[in-house]
């Protein structure tokens, strides 16, 4: 569903649903923008939140858009994948830290539901060790720095050099999450990422959504 020749911008939404609707309305119309239902939003509103985002984005685009459900599956992957695909998600995430059985079941279930599988490598030093154990690859690998770790420990960096290493061996798309500004997004694309995930600036200054999205969108052209 994602085109490997394109670069994408994924915007994560975690505010209240009425605020999210306003923010999505301010976004420019573009296929390169992926809308993410963030983990806190899913845990707050459940699958209703996903359907809500799907509807808002579809109204804006005038056609169905791409919705990522940041499920962060750790167990019982099958139940969760079915629920969110019915709700209208185009992709779901699973934690790379989950048991291998869970990740591999998650990938199978995503395939069965015809949605993209994304494996989030947050807090994993060597993503290769996980990838080697999987019988089937996911569509997307997310290289990720957690928000809490970023805030408390500024020295930790997203290991951008992993991008080309992984792409050299596996036929997957790479998404980079945890950067906070235009500069980190630029450097993730420069390092060959396919998707860059942003949220903080949108979360903290929703009134600037339109301007921010335009600036970021310049990058993915």
């Amino acid at each position, binding site marked *: 569903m994602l085109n490997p020749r394109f670069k994408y911008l994924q915007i994560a939404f975690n505010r209240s649903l009425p605020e999210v609707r306003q923010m999505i309305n301010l976004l420019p119309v573009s296929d390169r923008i992926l809308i993410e239902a963030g*983990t*806190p939003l*899913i*845990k*707050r*509103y*459940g*699958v*209703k*939140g996903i359907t809500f985002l799907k509807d808002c984005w579809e109204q804006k685009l005038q056609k169905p858009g791409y919705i990522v459900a940041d*499920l*962060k599956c*750790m*167990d*019982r*992957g099958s*139940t*969760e994948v079915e*629920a*969110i695909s019915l709700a209208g998600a185009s992709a779901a995430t699973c*934690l790379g*830290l*989950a*048991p291998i*059985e*869970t990740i591999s*079941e998650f990938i199978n279930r995503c395939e069965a539901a015809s949605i993209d599988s994304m494996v989030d490598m*947050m*807090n994993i030093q060597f993503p290769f060790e996980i990838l080697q154990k999987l019988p089937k690859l996911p569509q997307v690998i997310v290289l990720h720095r*957690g*928000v*809490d*770790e970023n*805030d*408390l*420990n500024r020295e930790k960096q997203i290991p951008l050099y992993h991008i080309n290493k992984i792409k050299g061996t596996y036929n997957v798309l790479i998404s980079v999450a945890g950067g906070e500004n235009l500069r980190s997004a630029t450097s993730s694309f420069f390092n060959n990422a396919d998707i860059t995930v942003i949220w903080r600036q949108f979360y903290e200054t929703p009134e600037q959504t339109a301007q921010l999205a335009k600036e970021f969108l310049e990058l993915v052209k």
Partner: protein
Amino acid sequence: MILQKKEKYLQIALNSNLQEAELIIRQLPISKRILVEAGTPLIKIYGTEAISRIKQLAGPQAYVVADMKTADLSQREVRMAAEAGASGIVCLGVSPIETIDLFIKECKSIGVDSMIDMMNVQDPLMILKKLKTSPDVVILHRGVDEIEFSKEKQIPYYQIKQIKGSYNILIAVAGSDTIREVQRAIFNDADIVVVWKEFYQASSATAKLAEDFLKVVK
């Protein structure tokens, strides 16, 4: 900590849907030793409404565990679950140490019990050692997918005594479904045993397990 160190508890995890959760809760014996859990799938499907609805069904005195499986943004998730009525909240042991530390701190300041789920953690002691403060509960776990696809993975009972020898915390063990397995976990010094209804079981089987627990385990 809200839970008592001297007591033994049975935690009933509710995972499928709210209708079934209601059916099970209505049949449960009333006891402060029975904890009800809003399982992760329920939370992801219904949102925090799953927690508030279960609290409402189980009554104001009930102890509700919110299995948030927090992996990031712990302050927000703790507040969200506590506001919905949770008394105990779960964070993943595999998440970054910064997240777990913030999680425990936030639980303490709000006055709810912090529970760290050690699913897929090789050595829980290694995690506990790195933390600024200890959590109230550690959950030793076999994931459902792990049980389903590799039967030989066992609940590591020896870890219970290892952890209790060094830390003053309660241990919950998840992954039992018969009264014998529950007894075995308690015999191995677990404080809380987590059980859930398999899809092929009747909800009355879960209620029966709870009754047996209150009778057999004192």
